[in-house]
């Protein structure tokens, strides 16, 4: 299974188990980019469905951090 698919699977499980936490607004205090973890998951699902790769470096960095977090 590709790494991204594994991450989507893990994140979907986390969102199901933490629906309220998934909708909490987050912000990077330097870039001021706002997001929710559910929003990041939605983008990954959309990427899988459309085949159009996420190129936003900040979203990719968040994905990396989520992967490190859920990987433990």
């Amino acid at each position, binding site marked *: 299974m590709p790494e991204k698919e594994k991450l989507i699977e893990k994140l979907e499980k986390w969102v199901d188990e933490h629906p309220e936490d998934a909708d*909490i607004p987050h912000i*990077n*205090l330097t*870039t001021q980019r706002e997001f929710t973890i559910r929003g990041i998951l939605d983008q990954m699902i959309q990427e899988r469905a459309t085949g159009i790769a996420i190129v936003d470096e900040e979203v990719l960095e968040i994905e990396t951090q989520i992967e490190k977090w859920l990987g433990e």
Partner: protein
Amino acid sequence: MVDFLIIRNKCDRATEYTNWIGEGMKEYLENQGHTVTDLSDADANPEKVTEWLRYDKEKTVKAVIALDHGSVDKFWGEKNNSLIPVIDTNNCRTLTRKLHVYTLACSTNARGGLGKIAVKGGCFSWLGYIEPVYAMKSQSFKDCIWTYMIAMAEGKTMEECEQILRKAYADRDAESFVYKYNLERLSLRKIEDDMTINSHNRYVPGTGMPEKAKPQ
């Protein structure tokens, strides 16, 4: 003269988060018997911050709680609704000497950065982050950030305050990646061990007398 100075501007999206985290701190600290000045929003300007922090004025005596933008060499406030540095590597020796500083801000404790220079210049302790960090609009995140401030106010040592904050981050690991991320970037710089805001502040320890009034 106050024990604590809170600095929390509010002029962009990020500082809407950090300003909110500081809501209620003044009242909490006052209920614990401390005196507090809260420089919020437009009050977090260079003139007021300087006025309240200058070592020779002794208007702030124990600690600074700084919830705002940060960078390697600056801590930011606001003026005319725009960001402006209020503590930097040029003025930190004067403004943070003999104080404890607790920040929720990006990068102020980076290698060779503001926190290190401040502590080298006589600031007792500086809790900050070595890189950019995240904030969240949740009560749990707010409670986490408050733990260090509460521990300081209770007279715990800076090492204990740091461990309490680290535990608060670790205990919330299941709630968001942000807790692990910020925790890994947290750093406490200090001039010595076992200090509290009561044992080390701008008063002479044990006398409660301002240093400038100390008999020569």
